[in-house]
Structures are given as C-alpha cells and as structure tokens.
C-alpha cells in the first residue's frame, strides 16, 4: 500500500433517504447527501440526532431500516459488508483489549485486516498520534486522552480511503487536537474525512457540513 499522501482516486459516498429506527424510536431522520474526495465533511446535529448512527450505517456495521448508501472508491463499488476494508472509524465507543499493550492491540488489528506490513503500519500509526513512547504499555493503564489517541491510530492503521471521526477531540489536550487537525489535513487531501462533531473548532476543519435535525434532509453547506 502507498503512503498516505497518494490520492485514492475517484471516491463517492452518498446516502439516499437513509433512516434508522430502533423499534418505535427514530434514531436517524431520513437524510440524503453526496460527498466525494478530496475533502472533509462535518456531520453536525444535536445529541441524539443520529450522528454516530449514520457513521455506523456508512461503515457497514448497521443495516439501516430505510434508504440506501453507496460507496465507490476508484471505480470499485463497496457493498456495506466490504466497507470496513476501505474505511476507518474512531469513535468514543471503541475500546481496546486492556491486557494488551497499545502496539499489540494495533498489531492484532493490522494482521486481521490483512495489512501488508503490519509492524510498519503500527509504527507509523503510533507515530502519527505521538503515542510511540507508550507503545508497549498496557492499554489498561492508559489515560482517557491516550486511549483517544489510540483510537485515532486504529482508524488510520490501514490507510483508509474514508476516515470517519466521531467526536475526535474528546479527552484530548491541545497537542492531541493538533494531531487531529493534521490527520484531517492529510486524509482529506488523499480521500474523504467525515467528522461527527458539535465542537465549533472541529467544524472548521471541514469544508462542508451535513446537518442532522428535525424532519429535514441533510443540507450540504
């Protein structure tokens, strides 16, 4: 696999009337949008408007109860169940094996994903989030900020074409936020970055915005 700087080719991510309900509760109002690379798109909306739900649907973890999504990378259409191969997700819900070190967790992920040079990928990812000094410490001993950095490292481990960040700045200090900004910069140049956030500063990292709310459709700004 090439370095992060090389563009992934034509990329299209679109949703058409995507909606999800858990039983009677509507978790995501129908939303339609279209996004492509290069670029970064912020997904905003009040708590419970379905930002995380939308990301889970886009990455293929959750089958929406209505509507459809399309992901096309370099002329190749990725069905929901294959999307995890070309997408990376960092979300506060993501936890690691506490009995393993940061490097071991990432190495396991890289090997399972079938990354060509797992050790190299782990080293690069840890470096990108400036966690390498603590690479061999057990995750159980990590602070919440370090865990957040590890989530970011996990998301970029396989150099995804679409990087999805759910509240990337949570628990992070200034240096950590700078890491997020750099990642968004790098990955929006070669592919697409989605940032689910309500933080005004994080929104400025993106050029466009999809707002989830009310009964309305997502309106790319």
């Amino acid at each position, binding site marked *: 696999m090439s370095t992060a700087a090389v563009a992934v080719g034509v990329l299209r991510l679109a949703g058409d009337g995507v909606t999800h309900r*858990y*039983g*009677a*509760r*509507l978790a995501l109002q129908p939303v339609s949008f279209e996004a492509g690379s290069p670029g970064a798109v912020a997904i905003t909306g009040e708590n419970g408007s379905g930002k995380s739900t939308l990301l889970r649907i886009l990455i293929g973890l959750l*089958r929406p*109860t209505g509507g459809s999504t399309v992901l096309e990378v370099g002329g190749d259409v990725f069905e929901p169940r294959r999307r995890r191969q070309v997408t990376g997700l960092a979300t506060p819900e993501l936890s690691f094996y506490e009995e393993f070190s940061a490097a071991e967790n990432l190495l396991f992920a890289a090997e399972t994903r079938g990354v060509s040079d797992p050790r190299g990928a782990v080293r690069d990812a840890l470096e990108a989030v400036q966690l390498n000094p603590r690479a061999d410490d057990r995750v159980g001993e990590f602070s919440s900020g370090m865990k957040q950095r590890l989530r970011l490292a996990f998301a970029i481990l396989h150099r995804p074409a679409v990087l999805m960040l759910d509240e990337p700045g949570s628990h992070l200090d200034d240096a950590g936020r700078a890491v997020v900004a750099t990642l968004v910069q790098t990955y929006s140049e070669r592919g697409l970055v989605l940032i689910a956030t309500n933080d005004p500063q994080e929104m400025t990292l993106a050029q466009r915005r999809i707002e989830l709310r009310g009964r309305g459709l997502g309106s790319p700004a």
Partner: protein
Amino acid sequence: MIWRITLFLWIAAAMTFGLLKAPLVPVLEETTRVLYFHIPSAWVTVVALGWSMLHSILYLWKRDLRNDDHAAAAAELGLLFCIAATVSGALWAKAMWGAYWNWDPRETSIFFILLLYSAYLALRGSIEGDEKRARLSAIYSVVAFVAVPFLIFVVPRMYDTLHPNLIVREGGRMKVEMDPMIRWCFLAMLAGFTVLFFWLQTLRVRVTRLERRRQLARG
C-alpha cells in the same frame, strides 16, 4: 365464517366417530382412541416447527419482518401442540406401560423438542429491537431445527422403543391391517388439525401485526 364452522363440525364429527364408532386395535384396546388426538398433535408440531424454520430462513434471506411474525407464531403454536402431544402421550403411557413417564426414546425426543422451542421463545423474550430479535432468533431457530430430524427420526430408530408404530411401516406404506374406519377417522383428524393450525397461525400473525402498528403509532 362459514369455513370456520365447517372446520369445527369436521373435527367434531371425526372425533365423535373416532371415540364412539371406530373399532379398537388389539393390544392397544381402549387406548386406541388417543391416536385420533395424539398423532395429529405430533404431526402439527412438526409442521409448525418446519413452518417456523422456513420463515426464519426467509427472514435471514429477505429481512422482512413479516417472516419473523410467522416464525414466532408458528413456534408458539408448535409448542402448544407439542405439549398436547406430550400430555396425551403420557396419559396413554400410564394406561399402557403403567407410568406417565419412562424416558422411552420417543418421550425423550419430544421432551427435547419441548425444551428447544421453550428456549427459542425465552430467547425471543430477552432481545430488544424488532430486527435484532428477528435476526438472532432466526439463527437459533435454524440451528434448533438441525436437531429436530435427529430427535424425530434418528434417535428413536437407534434405540429400542416400546412406542407403537401404527401408521408408518418400513417404506412408508400404510399398514394393511389398519381398519378403514380407524384410518378415515384418523386422516380426517389429521386434516382437521392441520387446517386448525393454519387458521390459528393467521390469527396469531394478525395480532402481532396489530400490536406492532399500535406501538409505532404510539412511538
């Protein structure tokens, strides 16, 4: 309406003839009469459970909640008929063998089926969310049905059983000695029970759908 009355009269007539008119089978004597109730119940159990599994597979294939309604309803009814078959069998066993329960292979397998589908319903009760419940219970239903042929056909053939094999002989031919009167009453009950099952099934499915619609309207 008319066919429901017909069904009622049909079963009532078959039952009356079976209980009052039909001759008795030697050895079984008076206990012959349980056959009109016991075997159709056991038969419907298998039909219902097969129906349930079929709709479970359809659900996994198409993700249409209507299939899950059918799977759930058929499992409930299957369990009900399974209890009927078990109880009537136990009563018969008391009369013939002197005890309600002997862990005869037939008794063992019907008891396993009872457990399997109670577990299925317990599982349904513990999952939140319609899609999730439908998907996970469909998975369980398919695995459970893997066990059913072993229980119904393989295990009782492997071990010695005292259970009479009145109807089906090697090769599946009807036993020639079966009295025509017995056979007609029996077949009439079999048909009646099968129709009864499908009627109850449509009722149960309709109730489930109404409940869901009400829930959606409220939410």
